[in-house]
């Protein structure tokens, strides 16, 4: 009897979605990293916290985005979860640790959990209004990779060149080559046309995190290289 219980505890422990060991100080530390990432778009930071269980499909979420959820979500927030991340375990963990309400309506979501693969530019996330632009969805996106070039080197041959508030000159961020990554960055680049309405995005890859708020100007590095060739 005792032995059977021990075995069961062992297996469930691997499946436990971890909370913050010290909620007040851990969430402060993580928040400052998130604040830094949004203040200086395209910079990378690594969040130190236990990773969620490595069980598909929700394992794609990674430690960084789980840390954002634990830091920012509570019973006042609505969270939308993309189908390819969704699992009963994630829903249960989200509700248990944060008390956040899970919604099926992307337009009412404060936060949206998704992956680059499932990003669909047609999903009607909230972009705020001209009078209240802050009432928009913050996208939390698991991406293929996160690499940046803080020097904004002119010889970068892939990724996206960022400029605007929080960036002294320019900075190159690469989130991956997939069609979803391209669609996502194209959608975020469109923020400028509707500013101050728009989507703010926080990217996670494992424990690594970067962000692009709606104030950032985005240009494809490849497009620039192409135009230079034709010149």
């Amino acid at each position, binding site marked *: 009897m005792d032995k059977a219980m021990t075995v069961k505890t062992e297996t469930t422990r691997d499946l436990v979605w971890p909370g913050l060991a010290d909620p007040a100080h851990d969430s402060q530390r993580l928040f400052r990293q998130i604040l830094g990432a949004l203040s200086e778009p395209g910079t990378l930071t690594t969040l130190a916290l236990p990773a969620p269980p490595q069980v598909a499909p929700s394992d794609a979420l990674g430690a960084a985005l789980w840390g954002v959820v634990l*830091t920012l979500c509570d019973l006042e927030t609505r969270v939308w979860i993309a189908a390819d991340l969704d699992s009963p375990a994630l829903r249960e963990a989200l509700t248990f640790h944060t008390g956040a309400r899970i919604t099926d309506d992307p337009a009412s979501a404060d936060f949206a959990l998704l992956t680059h693969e499932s990003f669909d530019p047609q999903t009607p996330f909230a972009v705020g209004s001209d009078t209240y632009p802050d009432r928009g969805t913050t996208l939390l996106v698991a991406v293929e990779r996160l690499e940046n070039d803080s020097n904004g080197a002119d010889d970068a041959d892939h990724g996206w060149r960022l400029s605007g508030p929080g960036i002294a000159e320019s900075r190159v961020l690469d989130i991956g080559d997939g069609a979803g990554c391209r669609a996502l960055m194209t959608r975020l680049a469109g923020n400028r046309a509707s500013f101050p309405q728009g989507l703010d995005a926080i990217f996670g890859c494992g424990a690594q995190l970067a962000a692009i708020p709606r104030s950032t100007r985005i240009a494809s590095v490849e497009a620039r290289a192409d135009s230079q060739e034709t010149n």
Partner: protein
Amino acid sequence: MDGYNFAYLDEQTKRMIRRALLKGVAIPGYQVPFGGREMPMPYGWGTGGVQLTASILGAYDILKVIDQGADDTTNAVSIRHFFQRVAGVETTTATTAADVIQTRHRIPETPLRSGQILVFQVPIPEPLRFIEPSEQETRLMHALEEYGVMHVKLYEDIARYGHIATTYAYPVKVDGRYVMDPSPIPKFDNPKLDGNPALMLFGAGREKRLYAIPPYTRVESLDFEDHPFEVQSWEHTCALCGSDHSYLDEVITDDKGGRMFVCSDTDYCQTRRGEVA
């Protein structure tokens, strides 16, 4: 301190303010409404700034608090003691040593560095408020980027006095979009807002608004081609450190008209005197 959460505010309030701060950073210069709490000090004493500081402050941060540039005046001393008690953080008067600086009406003379956060106490966050009393109207004016009336106000100064007479809370435009009140800092400090490597956060407690200027953001003071923006200058130098390029306070020294001019930034002045000595 027993009986209180770290940094006084409860965790849910901090999360609410933190979410608002992220939106403020994402929309530079836009005033984000937040659920301002009653703080154990009256409105007008920096309750907005205190709530922002409480939401960002960590146990290992070093805090500096200034009031009109000085570390040793009532408002600065009381807020510094408040955070020493409720967060147990280390405090400093040295601008270079601080991670978080809460300020009332000044930007330190010593250039800020990347990674520092400057928290401003704001009495009235709406730059259009004295022109248009209705919140609904000013919100619409921001939405439509309808700022002509602000230029009319500055023009009226020129028509009446021959120059732009606004000397503090001088309106700025952030990243070419939002007109913003930089809080009642002297216009002498306005150029420091532009492209500053530090993150600047603004909190108004009574009005329950917060806004932000991310690092390296373009911030222009409103002006006219034929009346360009200018900062104040003085014939005097600081009587204590001899500085001829800092913001000076006039101090009355007796009842016979005696007066002296000294740096308003006490840390800057003391550092200079230490270097000279």
